[in-house]
């Protein structure tokens, strides 16, 4: 028997949720086809405002990626707007000519922005704020900064204004009514909000009626009825929405304001349902996500034969403007049969108002402090009498019956049925039970399994508190920090996957690990390049275009674009012939500054890029190689004079330092690596604040690591004591390789050690012989490729293009 055909017109959040519920209840019941007028997958429209303000990217707000449609066998026609429904033939036809037949049809066409039909409303630059196309158009105009006028100070209008302001535009909001957001806020809260927005640089003009939009070929401004003229490069109309019910009306389905549905979301045609903003249920058209998700659940139930009934919703509102906390729910008009409780704290900018009727909360407006919003909303929805707690009700839930300073107490005290996530209708009990039952430990897991905080995200804090209460110390809210905006994976995951999936090029990593940008960014590319250089030393071709300029031209860029050059001086030892060669180079190339560095080297500063190869050629003739003073790699091994000269020296610290440096030069590490070898505990080489240091003692060599003397100051930790110089070298090399293989790019060794644990490092290097030798051998292998002097390579002509201009124009000749 062939499956029933379910066709869905519209690919927004409501039908997306309905299908999720349907696939969960009855997978495979229907053969599903979706028509989407937009050329995209299902994304979170609530989050358009953060996209507009630049706080999120489109990729961050996708709900169903391509694989979701594939995995559920859904046919998605993108950019296919349906033009007609034939209810007799039971088919729908799209503008592109495609006709598909259905057994059941769901109309989820959403809503259309209301555009005030004033003169000029069709000019280019007049935009609505409904979908990603609108956001992209706004961002495009916002690139020029300039001025934006937003008509309408409702939820959407204010979020648009905030986003455009964040994009650098000069923003004015004009609003017909005397106070802003009058449908959600009482005048007192509206005043506070207006003040906060004005402080953020947004101009707000109330009681302003738009007469005309000005401009000839595109928008130039707005004229108000009182004669005022405002300049603007963009006009955003956010005065309201109306259900997109035309398609249903033309098909002869009963339509009032929206498409009329019964409690089972069925229209006047029993084979046709309507869902989302286009539907009208018991005289109400909803525009917020929570009631739409509730009705989506009912429709999914009906489609698989259930008898669920949608009884309408009480809604609440939160404004998504960073730094402004605002909550409103229910009915807060004044009236004879109503009482109100108000709390104001002018200095803290807090305003709370509860409206009571028959001893029950029927409305709440909270500004500045909204943590108790979900508690009040819960009391309101359940119609709980508040007589007993009336005196302290306004102070919030944590004030009821007890005093505790634990911020989690309020959440802990919530009943299991209290709603935490308003968008998705998820209550506390479900979140807590799911965390325990599935062993969830990360916020992403909880979002995936319960949907809590997965839509607008404003309840994320509450969800994290629930996780913290349920999991105790096992919950770490900052578990994984993504490498950069191009990926959600952290450094450790990327390193692990490079090895596990045998990824050996940057494009392979980006493809396999689903990078969100086409070629990465200046944060991830150098990191990936290092990981690949480290993990596949004999196979990976170093990508110079992914290296920071210093590592590309083997010198250090200075503030004026010139470079400094630091030749290697092994262990800090030099000679008259070396110094003479440096002096000659300084004279020949008129190098303006010469400085002795903290790492016992000589730095020549102010060299023009074009001169670098010639400078290196002269230094090379004197036997110098690059000091890699620019590298995330081995920099210097600082030494004291040891037993050669010092009357306190216990070992040949200079000799050991030179030996280490000659063995390890050229190696790349996650961050720079500086070493020191001191010949006695007086520690003249300052080895105990280095990345790796050695203190020589009579009985051998004490190996230290994980010191810091930069942004952080930290003495080293002792790795262990070894008896011979050979052992010292082997253990240091093994430690370095362990750090090379596990460190995050730009993570100095002391941070890596803290993350990994000192005992674990000591165990692997000092006591696990097999591990130590493995590390040592891998380092030796990698050095075979790495130990090539970059200067002599470039003197011989490598990367010539780096050092010469492509062209020099003789402009006077063009006359």
């Amino acid at each position: 028997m062939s499956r029933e055909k379910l066709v869905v017109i519209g690919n927004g959040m409501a039908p997306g949720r309905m299908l999720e519920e349907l696939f969960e209840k009855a997978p495979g019941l229907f053969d599903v086809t979706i028509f989407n007028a937009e050329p995209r997958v299902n994304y979170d429209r609530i989050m358009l405002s953060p996209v507009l303000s630049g706080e999120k990217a489109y990729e961050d707000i996708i709900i169903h990626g391509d694989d979701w449609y594939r995995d559920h066998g859904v046919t998605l026609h993108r950019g296919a707007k349906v033009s007609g429904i034939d209810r007799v033939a039971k088919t729908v036809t799209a503008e592109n000519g495609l006709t598909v037949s259905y057994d059941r049809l769901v109309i989820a066409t959403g809503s259309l922005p209301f555009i005030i039909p004033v003169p000029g409303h069709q000019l280019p630059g007049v935009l609505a704020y409904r979908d990603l196309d609108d956001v992209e158009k706004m961002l495009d105009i916002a690139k020029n900064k300039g001025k934006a006028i937003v008509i309408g100070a409702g939820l959407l209008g204010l979020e648009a204004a905030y986003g455009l302001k964040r994009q650098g535009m000069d923003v004015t909001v004009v609003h017909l009514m005397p106070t802003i957001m009058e449908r959600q806020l009482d005048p007192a809260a509206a005043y506070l909000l207006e003040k906060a927005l004005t402080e953020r640089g947004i101009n707000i003009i109330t009681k302003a009626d738009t007469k005309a939009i000005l401009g000839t070929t595109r928008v130039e401004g707005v004229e108000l009825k009182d004669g005022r003229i405002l300049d603007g490069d963009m006009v955003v109309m956010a005065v309201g929405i109306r259900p997109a019910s035309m398609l249903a009306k033309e098909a002869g389905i009963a339509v009032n304001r929206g498409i009329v549905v019964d409690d089972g979301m069925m229209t006047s045609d029993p084979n046709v349902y309507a869902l989302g903003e286009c539907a009208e249920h018991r005289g109400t058209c909803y525009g917020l996500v929570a009631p739409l998700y509730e009705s989506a659940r009912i429709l999914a139930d009906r489609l698989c034969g259930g008898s669920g009934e949608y009884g309408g919703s009480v809604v609440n509102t939160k404004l998504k403007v960073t730094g402004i906390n605002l909550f409103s729910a229910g009915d807060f008009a004044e009236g004879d049969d109503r009482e109100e409780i108000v709390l104001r704290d002018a200095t803290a900018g807090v305003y709370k108002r509860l409206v009571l009727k028959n001893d029950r909360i029927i409305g709440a407006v909270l500004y500045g402090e909204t943590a108790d919003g979900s508690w009040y909303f819960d009391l309101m929805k359940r119609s709980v009498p508040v007589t007993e707690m009336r005196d302290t009700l306004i102070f919030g839930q944590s004030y009821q019956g007890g005093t505790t300073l634990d911020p989690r107490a309020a959440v802990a005290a919530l009943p299991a049925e209290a709603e935490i996530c308003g968008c998705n209708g998820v209550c506390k009990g479900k979140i807590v039970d799911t965390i325990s039952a599935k062993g969830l430990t990360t916020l992403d897991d909880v979002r995936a399994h319960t949907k809590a905080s997965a839509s607008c995200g404003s309840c994320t804090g509450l969800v994290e508190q629930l996780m913290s209460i349920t999991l105790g110390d096992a919950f770490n809210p900052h578990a994984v920090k993504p490498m950069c905006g191009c990926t959600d994976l952290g450094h450790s995951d990327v390193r692990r996957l490079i090895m596990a999936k045998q990824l050996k090029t940057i494009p392979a990593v980006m493809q396999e690990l689903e990078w969100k940008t086409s070629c990465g960014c200046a944060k991830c590319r150098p990191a990936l390049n290092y990981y690949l250089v480290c993990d596949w030393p004999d196979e990976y071709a170093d990508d110079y275009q992914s290296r920071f300029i210093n590592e590309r031209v083997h010198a250090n860029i200075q503030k004026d674009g010139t470079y400094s050059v630091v030749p290697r001086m092994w262990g800090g030892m030099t000679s008259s012939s070396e110094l003479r060669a440096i002096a000659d180079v300084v004279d020949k190339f008129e190098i303006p500054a010469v400085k002795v560095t903290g790492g016992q080297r000589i730095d020549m500063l102010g060299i023009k890029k074009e001169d670098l190869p010639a400078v290196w050629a002269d230094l090379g003739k004197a036997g110098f190689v690059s000091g890699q003073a620019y590298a995330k790699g081995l920099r210097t091994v600082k030494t004291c004079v040891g037993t050669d000269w010092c009357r306190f020296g216990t070992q040949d610290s200079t000799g050991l330092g030179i030996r280490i440096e000659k063995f390890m030069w050229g190696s790349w590490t996650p961050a720079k690596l500086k070493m020191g070898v001191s010949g006695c505990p007086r520690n003249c080489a300052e080895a105990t604040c280095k990345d790796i240091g050695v203190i020589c003692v009579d009985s051998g060599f004490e190996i230290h690591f994980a010191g810091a003397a930069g942004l952080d100051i930290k003495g080293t930790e002792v790795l262990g004591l070894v008896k011979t110089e050979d052992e010292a070298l082997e253990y240091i090399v093994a430690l370095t390789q362990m750090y090379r293989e596990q460190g995050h790019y730009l993570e100095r060794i002391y941070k890596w050690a803290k993350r990994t644990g000192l005992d674990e490092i000591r165990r692997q290097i000092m006591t696990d012989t097999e591990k130590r030798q493995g590390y040592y051998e891998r380092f030796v292998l990698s050095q075979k490729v790495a130990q090539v002097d970059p200067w002599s390579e470039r003197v011989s002509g490598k990367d010539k293009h780096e050092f010469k201009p492509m062209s020099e124009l003789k402009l006077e000749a063009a006359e």
Partner: protein
Amino acid sequence: MNTHMKSWFDVGSISDIPRRGARCVKTGTMTVAVFRTADDKVFALEDKCPHRNGPLSQGIVHDGCVTCPLHNWVISLETGRAQGADEGATLSFPVRLEGDRILLSLMPQTAEAVIAAE
């Protein structure tokens, strides 16, 4: 007067610039950085970051942007504008490909003009 401003200069071949890299063109009065992206588009900006005059030609090129080597400002190759929270713009110059030859005009274009032309 200033006739050179209007003409196109052949400044080299696209193969002279590494992919995701840049080369400099010196005009006597300033340096222009000519960029080549991963998908072989070319762009030209004055070689001066709007922040502290860092040489943009030395930065890492990614997608349609370059990250300045001095303080990591991200500059749009197309408009010369600083991205993200940073504000400022460097001069951008018309540049086009004829076959594999790169033709550069020294008549700077404003970011507004670049966007309007799209």
